[in-house]
């Protein structure tokens, strides 16, 4: 495996795959943090299952990115030997878990987006990406349903659960703009028939989110100023500690084998 050697910027195709893979990987890492902390055993198993699905998606996407990059970096090198500035995940998924309501609201916002995104990418001109997306679409449809089920019960639940769910929604809303913001990488990939037109996904995402929030009796926050930068490697202060924990084994014992 190669370390984080200075390299030329990745091609748009590689950058696009890294963004998808990194978001899956970081979301998996956050969900794994719930192990041993879940509110009940049944939910602990559910969260671990969600994490495993995202880890599988990350593995497939990063392996594909590494193969196209052609610099002998496999999925492990990309996951464990890059630094925070090289990660291009969405800011939304690197935020701390907060309480159970915040984790579930975040998962709803992200999974509802992934359902639309993977649905579109199943028709990608990159056949490997299309295959990964088609398989992953089934998984994220379940994640969306699971998160929506909980958000509805928390929002339309007790006074405290409702307060926590609304607070989570209000805090996370400014990170939803990045889901639909297109930059030059996105535009190049749409033009090549490989990527998805993110703006075109918004109406379907809006509909699912609005229906869920209505049933949860939660108020959809106003669209204000939106955070962005994760896809370009500009992260919140929360990513570095996450990577430190995720990467420590490989960094301390390079190429360790069980």
């Amino acid at each position, binding site marked *: 495996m190669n370390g984080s050697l200075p390299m030329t910027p990745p091609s748009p195709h590689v950058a696009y795959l890294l963004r998808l893979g990194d978001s899956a990987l970081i979301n998996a890492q956050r969900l794994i943090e719930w192990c041993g902390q879940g509110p*009940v055993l*049944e939910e602990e198993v*559910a969260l671990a*299952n969600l994490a495993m699905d995202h880890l599988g998606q990350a593995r497939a996407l990063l392996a594909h990115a590494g193969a196209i990059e052609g610099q002998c970096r496999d999925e492990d090198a990309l996951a464990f030997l890059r630094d925070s500035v090289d990660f291009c995940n969405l800011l939304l998924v690197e935020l701390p878990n907060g309480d159970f309501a915040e984790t579930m609201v975040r998962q709803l916002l992200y999974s509802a987006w992934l359902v639309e995104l993977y649905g579109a990418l199943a028709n990608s001109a990159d056949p490997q990406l299309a295959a990964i997306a088609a398989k992953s679409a089934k998984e994220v449809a379940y994640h969306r*349903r699971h998160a929506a*089920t*909980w958000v509805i*019960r928390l929002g339309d639940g007790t006074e405290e659960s409702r307060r926590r769910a609304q607070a989570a929604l209000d805090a996370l809303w400014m990170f939803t703009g990045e889901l639909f913001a297109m930059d030059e990488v996105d535009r190049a990939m749409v033009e090549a028939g490989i990527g998805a037109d993110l703006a075109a996904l918004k109406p379907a995402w809006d509909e699912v989110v609005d229906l869920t929030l209505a049933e949860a009796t939660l108020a959809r926050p106003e669209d204000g100023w939106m955070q962005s930068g994760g896809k370009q490697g500009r992260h919140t202060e929360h990513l570095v500690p996450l990577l430190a924990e995720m990467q420590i084994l490989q960094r301390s014992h390079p190429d360790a084998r069980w």
Partner: protein
Amino acid sequence: MHDWPLWEIFLRTGNGAAYRHAGGLHAPDAALALQAARDVTRGAARG
């Protein structure tokens, strides 16, 4: 959460096959019980 009802899980391998008891779980309502059952039996026969 200690007052959540107990639900029993029954799996079958396909339509018409016999149901097999696969343990129990606690959940606040039927919809969440069904989701939790799918999660805790993942790897066993999917019900």
